[in-house]
């Protein structure tokens, strides 16, 4: 716990900063109070509804780089000719994601790794390139949070371009992490000051529930383990966990429109749905919910680290909060750790 030097962004300066961002053509997403909950929404101005003390939103900001419905291209077609019109990538929005927690900022790594795995998904990468992430360290957490267990700290700047930490006075200690962050700073230099403070003293302590490396080892050879069935008994097979997850990338490709005119669309899908892997022949490789639950866990904690060198979980706890039947991910992972290792 040491005192260090930070840039200072005073609470009073926020309206001016938001105005500058908006004026420079940025779309700002910020956590906004909605009744008892806080959700990310587009804002053009700073307002008191913007909540910097929320624990977690229901939905992540995954949709800003991997929209729930994304048009890939338009087509026109007649008997002898077909043409394809791609979107204008240069017109994709320049987003500033304001005040998301370090877990969410870290979630862009697995997304990036998946969409870059040997084949570059230009849609995702362009959106990512145009996105500036302003993270906010966590002052609070709840029982569902387990970022520290997946090696992410509630004060981590990994994935953020700028990291904010709220101090006792309600002002922000600012760390400029990347060039993109520097650009925002340069744009509004006069709004920032200097301060010496102890950042760690404002950060909540998220208890570590399990060891990630150990878990990963434990999952090796767990394919036939009996716990998949036991754990998935109450799972009702909806896609809530996947859709609120900031790192889930499964998608579907759909054509919409008529034979002569329409578009091809990429939209979210979930490995939890029964028909996700169904063949036309009627054969289904992942026929039961336990197989699909296993796929979900193994994909995030075994396949992804193995294949693209990044874990598919950031410990935000959204899946567990959203689950209608309390399929608590960290609880299940702890149970897996307690099981004898399967060979």
């Amino acid at each position, binding site marked *: 716990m040491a005192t260090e030097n930070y840039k200072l962004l005073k609470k009073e300066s926020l309206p001016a900063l938001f105005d500058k961002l908006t004026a420079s053509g940025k779309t700002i997403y910020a956590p906004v109070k909605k009744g008892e909950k806080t959700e990310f929404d587009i804002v053009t101005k700073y307002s008191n509804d913007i909540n910097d003390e929320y624990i977690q939103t229901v939905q992540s900001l995954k949709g800003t780089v991997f*929209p729930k*419905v994304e*048009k890939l291209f338009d087509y026109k077609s007649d008997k002898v000719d077909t043409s394809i019109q791609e*979107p204008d990538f240069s017109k994709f929005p320049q987003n500033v994601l304001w005040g998301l927690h370090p877990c969410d900022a870290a979630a862009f790594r697995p997304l990036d790794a998946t969409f870059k795995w040997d084949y570059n998904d230009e849609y995702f990468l362009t959106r990512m390139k145009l996105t500036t992430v302003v993270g906010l360290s966590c002052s609070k957490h709840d029982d569902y949070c387990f970022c520290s267990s997946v090696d992410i700290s509630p004060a981590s700047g990994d994935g953020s371009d700028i990291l904010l930490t709220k101090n006792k006075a309600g002002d922000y200690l600012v760390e400029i992490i990347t060039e993109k962050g520097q650009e925002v700073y340069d744009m509004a230099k006069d709004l920032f000051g200097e301060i010496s403070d102890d950042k760690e003293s404002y950060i909540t302590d998220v208890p570590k529930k399990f060891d990630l490396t150990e878990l990963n080892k434990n999952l090796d050879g767990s394919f036939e383990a009996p716990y998949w069935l036991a754990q998935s008994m109450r799972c009702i097979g909806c896609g809530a966990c996947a859709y609120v997850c900031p790192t889930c990338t499964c998608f579907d490709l759909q054509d919409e429109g008529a034979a002569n005119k329409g*578009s091809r669309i990429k939209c979210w899908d979930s490995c939890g749905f029964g028909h996700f892997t169904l063949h036309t022949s009627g054969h289904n490789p992942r026929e039961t919910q336990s197989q699909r639950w296993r796929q979900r866990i193994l994909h995030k904690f075994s396949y992804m680290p193995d294949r693209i060198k990044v874990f598919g979980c950031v410990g935000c706890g959204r899946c567990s909060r959203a689950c209608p039947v309390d399929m608590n991910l960290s609880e299940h992972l702890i149970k897996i750790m307690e099981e004898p290792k399967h060979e």
Partner: protein
Amino acid sequence: MNEFEPKVVAFVCNWCTYAGADLTGTSRIKYAPNVKIIRFPCTGRIDFMLILKAFAKGADGIIISGCHPNDCHYTSGNFHAKRRWMVFRTMLDFLGVDVNRITFSWVSAAEGARWAEIVNTTVDGIKKLGPYDNYRKMVNEETEVNNG
């Protein structure tokens, strides 16, 4: 400015209304050309999704018509349909869909003039209501979201 010419889709049963519409033609009664007729075996076959699909594909108004009660070729198809429309109309109204854009009617094979009258009044009604912009806006929404 050209007058707005609504697109109206008519879902009709084979035995009564379609035959009735035929009679309108053979009787040389003129009626609004805005209507596109789709023939079904029975009103009982008309799934509510077909109405939504018609709106989604650009219809401004819809006519659903079949045999008068007790005249159904299959005895009870129109009675079942009637219940379904009673419930579906409640649903649409609750969701804020303009139910005035949907005309339900019974037109028998002998009522050629009545068919013309139903089509004409429906088309006139839709002309007053204007194009169904609300539905159009909903259908076209995804393009706005993604490139905005």
